[in-house]
């Protein structure tokens, strides 16, 4: 039925409406559960249905604004957003993102950007996914210890370094005391990585907050969504202004699905165990890693591709 197809004027492609809504719904659902924007999943999926890479990435950022706003709203009402931590991460992320853009420009000039980005993707996703999967599985199998058996865990080298830093600040909502330099530095690093990989960065930020900042999983989810709203607003505006690659119509259909999915996901996340969430997210991260691995190991249908999409 032709009327169920929509013509995307910026992408210059026609796509089935139900396919767009379905993609948005699925990715939004995962976004609501895990507190990630879903860019690392949706952009490759859009490219698979024939949307050019630049339009896919830019329009995806636009729809993530809606999904993360919706998700942040839902998590804020549930008391899951640490605004103080979120704002510090945003500040670091903006600095890191600006630096990252310059790195990407340099790599593009040398012609190595694509190789570096894909290999970094595989390594990052491989490490994060494997670690989360192992940790989630270990915690799920662990039996509760008797009270007398509980011992103070030995502090990691990272925790020892963090304790030695000045300007220790109390993050009430997360229940942690940590130097302000830690979230700023992590924000910068994640911002750089986000610019390099062209995604919101939730799949990196969530493990960082869980494992390095030791924040509770549900606060991590809400806080990450909060910081992603700002990252994606910045990306959407820059892509619209400089590259004209935001397809608003594409973003609208995706966000109708994704906001619905995000609400459903946020409702379910509070009913699931942290360990279950970790294992499922780890499996998704590993699946995306395998997809990119195949992409760089197999030649594809043609040896030529449009620079930045058709």
């Amino acid at each position, binding site marked *: 039925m*032709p*009327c169920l*197809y*929509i*013509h995307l*004027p*910026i992408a*210059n*492609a*026609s796509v089935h409406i139900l396919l767009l809504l379905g993609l948005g719904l699925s990715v939004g659902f995962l976004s609501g559960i895990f507190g990630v924007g879903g860019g690392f999943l949706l952009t490759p999926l859009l490219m698979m249905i024939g949307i050019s890479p630049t339009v896919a990435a830019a329009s995806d950022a*636009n729809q993530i*604004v*809606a*999904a*993360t*706003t*919706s998700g942040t*709203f*839902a998590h804020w*009402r549930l008391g899951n957003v640490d605004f103080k931590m979120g704002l510090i991460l945003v500040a670091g992320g903006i600095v890191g993102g600006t630096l990252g853009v310059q790195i990407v420009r340099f790599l593009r000039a040398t*012609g190595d950007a*694509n*190789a570096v980005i*894909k*290999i970094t993707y595989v390594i990052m996703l491989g490490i994060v996914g494997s670690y989360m999967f192992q940790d989630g599985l270990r915690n799920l199998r662990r039996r509760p210890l008797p009270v007398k058996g509980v011992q103070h865990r030995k502090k990691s080298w990272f925790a020892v370094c963090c304790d030695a830093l000045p300007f220790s600040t109390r993050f009430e909502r997360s229940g942690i005391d940590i130097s302000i330099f830690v979230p700023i530095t992590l924000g910068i690093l994640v911002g750089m990585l986000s610019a390099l990989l062209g995604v919101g960065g939730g799949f990196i930020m969530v493990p960082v907050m869980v494992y390095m900042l030791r924040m509770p999983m549900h606060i991590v989810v809400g806080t990450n969504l909060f910081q992603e*709203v700002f990252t994606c*607003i910045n990306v*959407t*505006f820059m*892509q*619209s*202004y*400089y590259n*004209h690659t*935001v397809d*608003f*119509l594409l*973003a*609208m259909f995706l*966000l*109708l699905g994704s*906001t*619905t999915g*995000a*609400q459903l996901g946020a*409702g379910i996340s509070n009913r699931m165990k942290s360990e279950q969430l970790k294992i499922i997210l780890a499996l998704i991260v590993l699946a995306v890693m395998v997809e990119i691995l195949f*992409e*760089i*190991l*197999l*030649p*594809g*249908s*043609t*040896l*030529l*591709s*449009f*620079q930045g999409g*058709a």
Partner: protein
Amino acid sequence: MLRIFRLILLICLFYGAGSFGEDIASGDTVITLNVSPDKIKVGTFYNGSSVRISADIPVCDGAVLVMEAGKEEIKLNRKGRVAGIWLNVAKVTVRNVPTVYLLAASDKLENICSPDRRRELRLGSEYLQNQIQFVSDKPLTGLEFEEFLKLKTDNGTYKMDIAINLEMTEPAKMRLSTALPIAPTIPPGTYHIMLYCFAGGNPIARGTSQLTVESTGLARLMVNLAENNAAVYGILAIAVSMVVGIMMGVIFNWLRG
């Protein structure tokens, strides 16, 4: 005096006919093409289209119809294997590329006319290969043209296997009909359609027409805003996304009670 006047008139007629192009100067029969529709409107629910072309032509061995537009420069990446990994290893600039190239024929092109004739009349891959230039920062592999054709065919902007149906209607006349598939990826613009009828490898009749593809309604509004008022477009895109996001949150909270 009359002879001089006739001579001047003949010279004028000769140059006048020449100015109308090769068709009349060569003395071929001019065919009228029926293109339906001759204007395609790309709206919100557009999913490609099909253009039916028909014409009454003289009896011939074969007919070839081509729809072509523009010349552009395209920048491509070429993949190569480095340590077992497929990566972009070179940038390739392709010059003199027709934006769109659709070719319909009643038989294989090699059965209709010679390669030289095909190049001369801008028909088929010989013409494209002659026309398109590849420039790269790394040495060319020789496979670029083949790979480029594959890329444009997958993209829907090139197609060279469209059939033409020829039917005898009168002892000296034939009816030609074909349908050109207009993929949704074909950009708005004016496309030139040329028809050639061949006998003994030479063109005996020709016809030209045009097809216009134009965006309308919301699609046109969006493209104009995105290109001419990019900042406003970006702010609108963000604002609408945030409002929809919050509204969906409110609706879901209300639904949950």
